[in-house]
């Protein structure tokens, strides 16, 4: 008899645990709270839809920059709620520390928010599996910079959260001290300046190559240098994109030369040194960081923290050539950043689609980016001066062909995407007295043409 009792207690413990688990889970979930994430947009919505009148709507939002929720994100939500009083609540899931791998797993499990950031590793061809189209590519491209960037079959799936300029963030004090205060406008001036900086023990460029993502600017430099805004798509048909004389080779050669000359930070491999690099730039140990203008305000914050004026840190286009003039301008790439999308299973499709645009149009400036609207989009005030420079020509790239990512996968060279290959094949050999491995890159890329 006692034995039976024990059996049932043990079985009971386990099953009771599971059951109460489910119950406590749902009951806790139904308590609304401003920062709560509902397990899934559609589920949450159907729950509230059933309980209350049709008009009460809860939307869910997944975005990074958790730390800016109160200052930046919440005001936008409240403004939207004023326009749409039926939106009783917008729940927020902070994605800052959710890795891309986790985000993809959440997508495949159907557990993602009504309006959510698209993980940058997602294949564009997968977009229709998870997201609703936001409009035709023509319509989106007319309205937003890179509005057609993430497209499948003529439909656009990603709303850009802002655009940035790709160029060099520099420390003016360092240039004043070692380079006669000249902000390099030509390649020769840049090289001269770097030589002087190097002689004085200053790190010329802090690349942050170990974190991988900062290298995409070096890759995009090839597009800028080529003069062909659509250059990224041209390598689809190029069997040897790193052959002698190609723009990719030219851009990578520049990086290789910097590495050989010892102009880069000492440790290019360690990951997550972004903050260190900004502090190093502010304190004058580093002169240049080649990145996007979204980093400008962060760098200026660092200068301020050291008691320096914000103007110490400035922005310039990358001087990749000589004889720069109004007739032979330096090109400056207007670059895409991240994109947001609407859950294809959302219960409130129209509201969600409106909200995604509303959110993307307002989030840019507070995050240190230019607004994404082509007409009437504001730029960051500290970048206004660029439009007055007659030797600078801005451009945007057309949408990337979806095949590019597939070819990159075949070759396992993350060109024009993640750009970890620059460290492996260009920088590390150069730092260790070897030549960049262009033949190897060509050979790997050639796999696509077999």
């Amino acid at each position, binding site marked *: 008899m006692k034995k039976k009792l024990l059996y049932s207690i043990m079985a009971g413990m386990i099953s009771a645990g599971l059951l109460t688990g489910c119950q406590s*889970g749902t009951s806790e979930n139904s308590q609304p709270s401003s*920062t709560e*994430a509902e397990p899934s947009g559609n589920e949450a919505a159907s729950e509230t839809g059933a309980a209350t009148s049709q008009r009460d709507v809860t939307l869910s939002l997944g975005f990074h920059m*958790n730390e800016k929720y109160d200052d930046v994100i919440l005001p936008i939500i409240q403004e939207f709620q004023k326009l749409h009083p039926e939106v009783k609540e917008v729940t927020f899931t902070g994605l*800052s520390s959710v890795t891309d791998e986790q985000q*993809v*797993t959440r997508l495949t499990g159907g557990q993602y928010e009504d309006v959510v950031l698209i993980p940058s590793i997602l294949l564009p061809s997968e977009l229709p599996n998870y997201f609703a189209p936001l409009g035709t590519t023509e319509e989106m491209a007319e309205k937003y910079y890179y509005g057609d960037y993430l497209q499948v079959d003529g439909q656009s799936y990603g709303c850009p959260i802002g655009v940035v300029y790709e160029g060099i963030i520099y420390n003016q004090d360092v240039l004043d001290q070692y380079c006669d205060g000249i902000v390099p406008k030509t390649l020769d001036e840049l090289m001269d300046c770097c030589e002087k900086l190097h002689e004085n023990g200053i790190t010329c460029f802090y690349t942050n190559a170990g974190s991988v993502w900062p290298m995409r600017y070096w890759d995009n430099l090839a597009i800028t240098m080529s003069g062909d805004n659509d250059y990224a798509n041209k390598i689809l048909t190029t069997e040897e994109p790193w052959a002698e004389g190609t723009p990719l080779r030219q851009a990578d050669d520049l990086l290789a030369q910097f590495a050989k000359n010892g102009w880069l930070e000492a440790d290019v491999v360690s990951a997550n040194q972004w903050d260190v690099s900004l502090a190093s730039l502010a304190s004058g140990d580093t002169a240049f960081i080649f990145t996007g203008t979204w980093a400008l305000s962060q760098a200026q914050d660092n200068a301020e*923290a050291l008691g320096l004026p914000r103007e110490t840190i400035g922005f310039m286009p990358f001087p990749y050539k000589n004889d720069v003039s109004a007739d032979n301008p330096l090109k400056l790439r207007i670059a895409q950043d991240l994109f947001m999308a609407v859950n294809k299973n959302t219960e409130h499709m129209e509201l969600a689609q409106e909200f995604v645009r509303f959110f993307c149009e307002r989030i840019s400036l507070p995050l240190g980016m230019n607004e994404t609207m082509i007409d009437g989009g504001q730029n960051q005030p500290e970048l206004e001066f660029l439009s007055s420079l007659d030797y600078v020509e801005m451009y945007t790239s057309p949408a990337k062909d979806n095949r590019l990512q597939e070819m990159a996968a075949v070759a396992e060279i993350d060109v024009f995407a993640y750009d970890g290959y620059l460290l492996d094949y260009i920088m590390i050999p150069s730092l260790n007295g070897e030549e960049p491995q262009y033949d190897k890159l060509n050979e790997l890329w050639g796999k696509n043409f077999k």
Partner: protein
Amino acid sequence: MRTVMSDKQRTSILKALKYLILLTVVFIVIYPLVGVFLASFKTKIEYLSTDSMVLPLNWGNFENYKTVLLKGNVITGFANTLFIIFFSCIFSTLLCTMVAYCFTRFEFAGKNYIDKFYMMASFVPSIIVHLIIFKDFAHVGLVNNLFSIVILYSGVDIVSLYLFKQYFNQISVAVDESAIMEGCSYVRVYWNILLPMVKPAIVTACIIKITYIYNDFYTAFLYLPATEKGVMSTVLYRFIGPYSSEWSVIAAGIIVVSLPVFIGFIFAQKYVYKGFSDGAVKG
């Protein structure tokens, strides 16, 4: 007389050597940690602009600790973690000891294969496993439910299984048999006689399980994305942004997060190392 002296000398030399070794180990463990400890008292910009072994300007700077405690959701995280640990330890101990009991006391078909599969389980890449099973968990509503993690951790892991097998093997089967003679069922033997005898193994296995749960952020973020379902391992991540991370706050976080386990371990170990139960051993 002389030999006794030299014996004594030898033991004291051996003892000194022992302490020398232990102190070296302590140094190797602690030295890299000093940098984190120092960093936890530095301001953000001070951390970024000084070398790691440079002492902080102001030892009274507890701002980082304040930030962790106020903004880190430490209390919620700790409560949720305790909940998960409590149930996971109970379930996994039960399951592991039940399997170990069957493995050591019974002969049955397929036993060796099950054992092999438990071994295999530790080599299946978990990120891929989650890609496969997350859907099912989502489907039955186990996302943002603390029990999702409990279930994930309740499975039998190979190391605990071996640990329990080792202990059961050291207990003479005569102990069981005398109880069975008196009319005890197998379940009673397991529950009333064997389980209390392997307490040190239970504590050891639980310490390891707790450490894993405490530090695992991958499953925590995946299955418990809601803020109020945060656990201790996610406390640190609250301060790691995609671009900018507050390392000095994280340093304080590391200390705040690691201390409870450290203290818990110091208290728990007296149960681990009390020595194996006095009587009832084989031989």
